């Protein structure tokens, strides 16, 4: 009893205070009160006027009011119809705040107030109105956020907000984004055909994915059939049935779908109808065991149809007549012909430019693949070209390099340091392996190239199995340092990952290093001497054994470094080397033996060719490799000695 009294008293007190507060000047409250009916019973249709007035008033509280309204946090006091912000309290009462000042007004019983519950339509209108505030927010981050929100879910209503938000935008980047977005929205939502066409034309040759996303829906079409061509429709093209674009079956299916022709009886339906009409082992007088051909079934079905048991089959003549009696056409979903024409034109120009950029991107891809092949093949080219030795275990040296990188990473956790350690270590290890192999095996097989090929193959399978036994069959990761993550992005079409750039740089370094070693150093001189005339070189005091050993070590060492590089972007497995060996051979053969430039050209050709074929047939990399190998086989027809061939008597035998 006492409690009720106290509560009533407290309520009265608060009411008094509230009344005082309300009596103070509150333009926003006044504005809302003026439109009280529309606010209370807000609907999508009636709300616009209120919001426009609110926005036009320029009152500082408008934004918060709208935001709270949308969040259903505005309540109305029943007794005087005033609006308040509100917060439900744990004791089920409602704490009201003044909408002008935000000061607490008092605690009210739930029954004394009423929550405004705008429906979703109203809320979205309010949200649109709020976007304008967000776009003009003093905080640039907020503005960017607002733009992102529009980019994610553009709506017609955003258009006005965007246009209103140009003014006062002092960040040029944000202004550009706003303007771009405005043009995009104009394309999609503006009522004015001329404005849309102008916006569309402004995107001519634009590479952005968003531009294509805005333009593409404009050119979407629906294939239709009708008795005659509709005059008011925006028609892209009339299509004749029986052509590659529209087969007769498809055309008839269109007619059936449009209910312009009866559906054809499928073989399965025919079969079901026959089964349904089996009477004592025969259908329409035909014994069922004879119904094992399509002709017999059609005959039996025709008999049934003649008796009226089943619907008659649509004959070929019916189909012909139906197709002849109708027209087939692609109709734009967008009714405005000016817009579709402009969009079509803009898309054509965009696709031309995208094509050019894709070629550029493809060239980058090809280049990076080429640098990988170059790295993988150059060691082979040295041993093959200089010594005439085919090293089938070259792929396994690449694998050894990759595993070296993996092991180093297990020991040194810092990825940058471990890569810096792994590169020379991989070189050293594979150099040693190469020298050992040369000393133990290859030395004994000079001038017997086919046997060298087989012996090194034996080493190859042994090494591969050994790696399997040590490291297991599952792939081991070789993680690149963080600064190699990500990609260098030129535009929406052209980009290249930093790892690939790093591999490219590495292969360029090796190109020049090798050119330097072979052309400018004593070792290179001796190597060339031994290549051209080993006996003469020996008589000049050069030790061919030493040179062969060093050359082989050098070629193998580079394979090890290639292994680290390849391991960075592919998983390290015991089959890593085997995956590259055939391509490496191809590179050497296509390039021409015994020439670093030849290997470079060969790698470039094979790399870009493979990417090119993959581009023509992106779904199928297996087929791409097949075609590439076939191409190489044909290429060898025209340049049996490779792109850069040795000429003259030296090349003869």
């Amino acid at each position, binding site marked *: 009893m006492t409690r009720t009294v106290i509560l009533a008293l407290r309520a009265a007190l608060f009411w008094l205070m509230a009344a005082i507060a309300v009596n103070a000047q509150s333009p926003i409250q006044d504005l809302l009160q003026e439109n009280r009916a529309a606010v209370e019973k807000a609907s999508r249709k009636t709300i616009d006027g209120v919001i426009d007035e609110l926005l036009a008033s320029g009152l500082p509280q408008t934004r918060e009011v709208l935001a709270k309204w949308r969040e259903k946090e505005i309540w109305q006091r029943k007794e005087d119809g005033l609006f308040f912000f509100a917060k439900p309290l744990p004791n089920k009462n409602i704490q009201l705040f003044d909408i002008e000042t935000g000061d607490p007004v008092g605690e009210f019983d739930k029954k004394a107030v009423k929550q405004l519950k705008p429906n979703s339509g109203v809320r979205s209108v309010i949200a649109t109105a709020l976007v304008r505030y967000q776009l003009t927010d003093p905080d640039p981050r907020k503005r960017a956020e607002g733009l992102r929100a529009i980019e994610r879910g553009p709506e017609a209503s955003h258009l006005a907000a965007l246009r209103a938000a140009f003014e006062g935008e002092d960040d040029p980047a944000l202004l550009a984004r706003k303007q771009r977005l405005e043009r995009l929205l104009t394309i999609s939502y503006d009522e004015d055909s001329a404005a849309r066409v102008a916006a569309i034309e402004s995107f001519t040759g634009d590479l952005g994915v968003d531009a294509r996303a805005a333009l593409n829906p404009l050119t979407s079409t629906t294939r239709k059939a009708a008795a005659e061509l509709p005059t008011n429709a925006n028609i892209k093209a009339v299509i004749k049935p029986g052509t590659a674009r529209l087969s007769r079956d498809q055309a008839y299916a269109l007619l059936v779908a449009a209910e312009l022709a009866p559906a054809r009886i499928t073989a399965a339906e025919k079969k079901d109808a026959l089964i349904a009409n089996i009477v004592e082992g025969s259908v329409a007088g035909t014994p069922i065991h004879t119904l094992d051909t399509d002709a017999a079934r059609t005959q039996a079905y025709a008999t049934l149809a003649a008796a009226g048991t089943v619907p008659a089959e649509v004959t070929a003549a019916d189909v012909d007549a139906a197709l002849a009696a109708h027209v087939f056409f692609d109709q734009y979903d967008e009714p405005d012909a000016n817009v579709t024409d402009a969009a079509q034109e803009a898309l054509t120009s965009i696709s031309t430019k995208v094509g050019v950029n894709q070629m550029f991107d493809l060239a980058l891809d090809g280049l990076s693949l080429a640098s990988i092949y170059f790295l993988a093949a150059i060691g082979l080219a040295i041993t093959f070209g200089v010594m005439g030795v085919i090293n089938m275990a070259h792929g396994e040296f690449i694998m050894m390099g990759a595993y070296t990188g993996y092991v180093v990473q297990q020991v040194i956790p810092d990825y940058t340091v471990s890569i810096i350690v792994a590169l020379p270590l991989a070189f050293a290890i594979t150099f040693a392996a190469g020298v050992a192999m040369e000393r133990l095996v290859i030395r004994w097989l000079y001038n017997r190239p086919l046997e060298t090929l087989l012996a090194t193959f034996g080493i190859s399978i042994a090494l591969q199995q050994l790696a399997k036994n040590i490291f297991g069959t599952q792939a081991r990761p070789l993680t690149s340092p963080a600064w190699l993550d990500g990609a260098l992005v030129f535009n929406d079409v052209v980009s290249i990952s930093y790892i690939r750039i790093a591999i490219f740089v590495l292969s360029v370094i090796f190109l020049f290093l090798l050119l330097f070693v072979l052309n400018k150093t004593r070792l290179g001189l001796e190597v060339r001497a031994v290549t051209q005339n080993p006996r003469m070189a020996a008589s000049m005091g050069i030790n061919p054994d030493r040179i062969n050993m060093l050359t082989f070590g050098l070629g193998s060492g580079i394979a090890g470094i290639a292994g680290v590089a390849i391991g960075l972007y592919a998983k390290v497995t015991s089959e890593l080397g085997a995956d590259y060996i055939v391509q490496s051979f191809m590179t050497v053969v296509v390039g021409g033996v015994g020439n670093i430039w030849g290997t470079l050209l060969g790698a470039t050709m094979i790399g870009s060719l493979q990417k090119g074929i993959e581009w023509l047939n992106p779904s199928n990399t297996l087929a791409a490799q097949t075609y590439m190998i076939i191409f190489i086989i044909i290429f060898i027809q025209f340049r049996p000695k490779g792109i850069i061939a040795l*000429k*003259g*008597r030296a090349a*003869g035998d």
Partner: protein
Amino acid sequence: MSTLLEVSGISVTFDGFRAINNLSFNIGNAELRAIIGPNGAGKTTFMDIVTGKTRPDEGRVIWGEKNISLLKMSESQIARAGVGRKFQRPTVFEDQSVFDNLLMALKKERGPFDVLLYRRSAQDRDKVHALADEIGLSAELPRKAGELAHGQKQWLEIGMLLAQEPRLLLVDEPAAGMSPAEREHTTNLLKEAAKTRAVVVVEHDMEFVRRLDCKVTVFHEGSVLAEGSLDHVTANQEVIDVYLGR
């Protein structure tokens, strides 16, 4: 005497080096000819061109009575047309018997199916034996060619050339590494062969050339410097300068 082989105005360049420079050369039926010249004069390249191993950059190589161009033919076609060649190093099939070596060279149909269905006749065997007699290898017939001495290999190769029954024989340094007695035999073989066909011998050894007693052509820097009897060319001052008078 009618011309068997007419080479006119051929030139060939290897990587900027002009190995043959506007060279012309004729040889008639049943003529023995020696070609001499210093190293790099283009003797071997000349043989390469005639036998189809190297294609000249320009010039003509005309063969036989029907004036066929050899430049459009492959090595094997030229060989079948009647040009036989002996290389500097003796190249016989060392893994096979002397008999098989000679049999393979015997003038017969050369197509794969003809060879596959070939049945050795007594006539062919007699031919092989006759050849072996001529080159002095009768006793070595069942032996593997790889077991022969160097001079014997040279003869075997000459024997294989004769078995081909060529109309033109190109012989590259046949006497290299032979003892005097072997040289004598070789000289006789070549002279005998030249009675029925044209024989071109490339040789460094003046003594050997003198013994051949035939017309001599001197090559220098890819073209013909002089031509005539050995005495005639050795008297030529230019020849002495570039070659003999070194």
